[in-house]
C-alpha cells in the first residue's frame, strides 16, 4: 500500500491517497468544498471554478489539482467564499432559472448552493438570454434555460450500449447542450432517471413525471448541500 500524503486544509491535518485530487481528498477528510461540475469517479473538467481554493497564495481548482505533500490549502476564508458566491450569482444571471416552476427545485445543486451561500438578489444584471427547449426526445426534455454547461452529462452518461446521447453544439456564448433524440428513445426509465440525476440543475428532465416527490422529502428541503460531508463551515 502506498504511503498517504499529508496536507492541511485551513489548518486541519488531512491525508490523501497519492494522485488524489484535492476535492475528493477533502471530502474523505470531512471537509466540504463546494463543486458543481465535478462528480466523483469521472475525469475532472475544472469548468465551473466553484471549487477554487488558495494554495501558496494562488487560486487553484480543487477538482483538477492533485494533493501534494505538505500542501497548506485555504478553503473557508472570506475571500474564497466571496468568490464562490459571485460565481453562483453569475450562473443565475446567465441563464433563466425560474426555481418556482422547476421540478428540480429542492433537488437542484445550484439552488442548494445559492441557499447555502445565502444569495440574495444577484449583484449582476440578469441577462435573460433567449434559449430553447428541446422536447423532441420521448424520454427526456432538454431545457437550455437552465443548463450551466458543466458537461457532467457528456462526461458521465452513455446509454446501455455505451453510446453518448449528450453532446455540445456551437461555440463560445452560443455553446449549447444537445440530445440525440433517436438514441434516447430507447432509454429505460431507470436510465432516463439516471440522466436527470446527473444533471446538477433542471436542464435534463424526465418526461411526463414531474413534481411527484412531495415538498419536504426532496434532497435539500431540510439540510443544506454538503451536510453529508462533516463541514468546517
Amino acid at each position, binding site marked *: 500500500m502506498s504511503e498517504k500524503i499529508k496536507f492541511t486544509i485551513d489548518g486541519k491535518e488531512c491525508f490523501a491517497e497519492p494522485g488524489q485530487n484535492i476535492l475528493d481528498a477533502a471530502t474523505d477528510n470531512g471537509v466540504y468544498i463546494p463543486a458543481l461540475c465535478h462528480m466523483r469517479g469521472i475525469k475532472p473538467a475544472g469548468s465551473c471554478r466553484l471549487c477554487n481554493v488558495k494554495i501558496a497564495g494562488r487560486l487553484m481548482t480543487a477538482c483538477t489539482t492533485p494533493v501534494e505533500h505538505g500542501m497548506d490549502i485555504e478553503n473557508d476564508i472570506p475571500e474564497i467564499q466571496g468568490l464562490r458566491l459571485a460565481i453562483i450569482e453569475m450562473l443565475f444571471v446567465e441563464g433563466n432559472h425560474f426555481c*418556482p*416552476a422547476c*421540478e428540480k427545485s429542492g433537488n437542484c445543486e445550484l439552488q442548494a448552493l445559492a441557499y447555502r451561500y445565502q444569495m440574495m438578489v444577484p449583484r449582476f444584471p440578469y441577462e435573460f438570454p433567449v434559449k430553447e*427547449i428541446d*422536447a*423532441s426526445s420521448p424520454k427526456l*426534455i432538454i431545457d437550455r434555460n437552465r443548463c450551466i454547461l458543466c458537461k457532467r452529462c457528456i462526461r458521465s452518461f452513455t446509454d446501455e450500449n455505451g453510446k453518448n446521447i449528450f453532446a455540445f453544439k456551437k461555440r463560445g456564448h452560443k455553446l449549447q447542450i444537445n440530445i440525440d433524440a433517436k438514441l434516447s428513445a430507447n432509454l429505460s426509465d431507470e436510465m432516463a432517471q439516471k440522466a436527470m440525476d446527473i444533471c446538477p440543475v433542471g436542464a435534463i*428532465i424526465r*418526461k*411526463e*413525471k*414531474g*413534481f*411527484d*416527490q*412531495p*415538498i*419536504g422529502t426532496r434532497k435539500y428541503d431540510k439540510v443544506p448541500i454538503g451536510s453529508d460531508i462533516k463541514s468546517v463551515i
Partner: protein
Amino acid sequence: MAKKITIEPVTRVEGHGKVTIHLDDEGNVVQSRLHIVEFRGFERFVQGRPYWEAPVLVQRLCGICPVSHHLAAAKALDVIVGAGTGDGLTPTGEKMRRLMHYGQIFQSHALHFFHLVSPDLLFGIDADPAIRNIIGVALKFKDLAVQGVMMRKFGQEIIEVTAGKKIHGTGAIPGGINKNLSIEERDIFLKGPDPMNIDKMISWSQDAVNFFKDYHKKHRELIDTFAAFPSSHLSLVRKDGAMDLYDGVIRAVDAEGKKILHDIDPQDYLKYIAEEVKNWSYMKFPYLIEYGKKDGWYRVGPLARLNTADFIPSPLAQKEFEQFKAYTNGKPNNMSMHMHWARLIETLHAAEMMKELLNDPDLQKDDLVTKGTKVKEGVGLLEAPRGTLFHHYRINDNDQITMANLIVSTTNNNEPMNVAVRCVADSMIAGQKEIIEGMMNAVEVAIRAYDPCLSCATHALGKMPLEVSLFDSNNNLIDKKRS
C-alpha cells in the same frame, strides 16, 4: 364643464384597480368604469413549457388563491393524461385535492371577511379610514380579529399538509396527488388544542354567519339595497344539483331563477361562453353566447353559487342555505352585499367538508395517481373562492403546451363589478360637487363585495393610499385629493 372622477387605487381588494366616473355638466353620471391595468401574460409564457409544469407555474398568478389555479390546471391535465374528470381519480387523489381546496376556500373567505370586509361593517362605510381597517378591528374587536387570523392559519395549514407548502405548493399532479395524509398530520386538525381544531373552526364559522345575520337585522336598508341589481348567475354544481366547489357541471340561472345554462359538461364550455375584449381594460368580458354580449353577462362567486345550487350537502350549511333562500322566497338573490352572507355560509360548508374528509380513511391510502390514454386537450373548472375558474390547455406531440386559455373568477365578474360601481355612482355620487371619503369608499365597498383579485399583489394591510383625481372633459386635472 364635464368632469371625470378617478378613484385610484382601489384599496383592500387584492391588487389594484382604477375607477373613473364621468359626470356631465349637471353632475349626472354619464359613464363609470372599473379599469384593470394589470397584464400578467401567463397564457403566453406557459406556451412551450412541458404540460406537467402548468399547475406549479400558473399558480404564481396569485398569492391569495394559488391553490385554485394549481387545482384547475391539474384538473385540465387529468383529462390530458387520460385520467378523465372528477371520478377518474383514485379516491385518495380526489379527496386529498378536495381537502386542499376546502382549506383554500376556508382561509381565503376568512381573510376576506375578517380582514377586508369587517372594517366596513364594524365602523361603517363612511367612517374615518384611519380606524376603518384591520388594525382598527384588532384594537376594538380583538376576539374577532384573532378569530380571523386563526381561521386563516387553519386553512393554510390544511394547504400545507396537502400541497407541501402554505403558498405555491406542488401537491396536485396530472392524474392525482403526490402525497397522502398521515394519521399524525390528520390528528393535528382533528385533535389540535383549542382553538386550532376542526370543531372550533366549525363553531367559529357558525358565529361568523350569525354575526352577519345580526348585522343584517340592524342594517337591512344598507345590506339589501347597496349596489343591488338583477343579473344572471353561473357556477359549477354537482350533477344532482348540490353545491360542489371542486367539480361538477356548469349551470346558469337568470335573475328570476330560470335555468339558462343547463348543467353542461365543462369540456364544452367554448360552445356556450365567449369573451369580449374592450379597449379600455386588460380584463376581458365573458358572456353566454346564446344571450349575446350585451345581456349574456353573469355573476360568479359565493352569491352565484347559492343561487344556482339546489342544496348544500353538509347539514349546518344547508340550514343556513334554507334561511338564505327563504329571504328571497326561493328566488335568486341579487343583492351585492348578500355576497358576504353567502361567503360565510360557504365558509361553514368548507369547514364541515374538511371535517368529513379528515375522518375519511381513504386519505391514508397509497393509490395516488391514475393515468390512461393521453389526449391533446383538456379543460379544468373549479369553484375558486371568488367564483368559477376556467383552465384550458392544448399540447403538441412533444408534450409541450401550445395553447392556454384562462378565465379567472374576477374576469367572470368584470361586468358585474362595473354594474355595481355604476349603481353606487348613480345613487351616491351623482349630483355631488365634492368628493368625500365615505363616497369614495362606497365605490370600493361595492367592488370589494366581489372580492376581486385584480392582480396577484396582496396588499391587505396598511394605510389606505387613496387618491381621487378630478378631470374636466378635456382630461385636464382640476382637483386631486388624497386620504
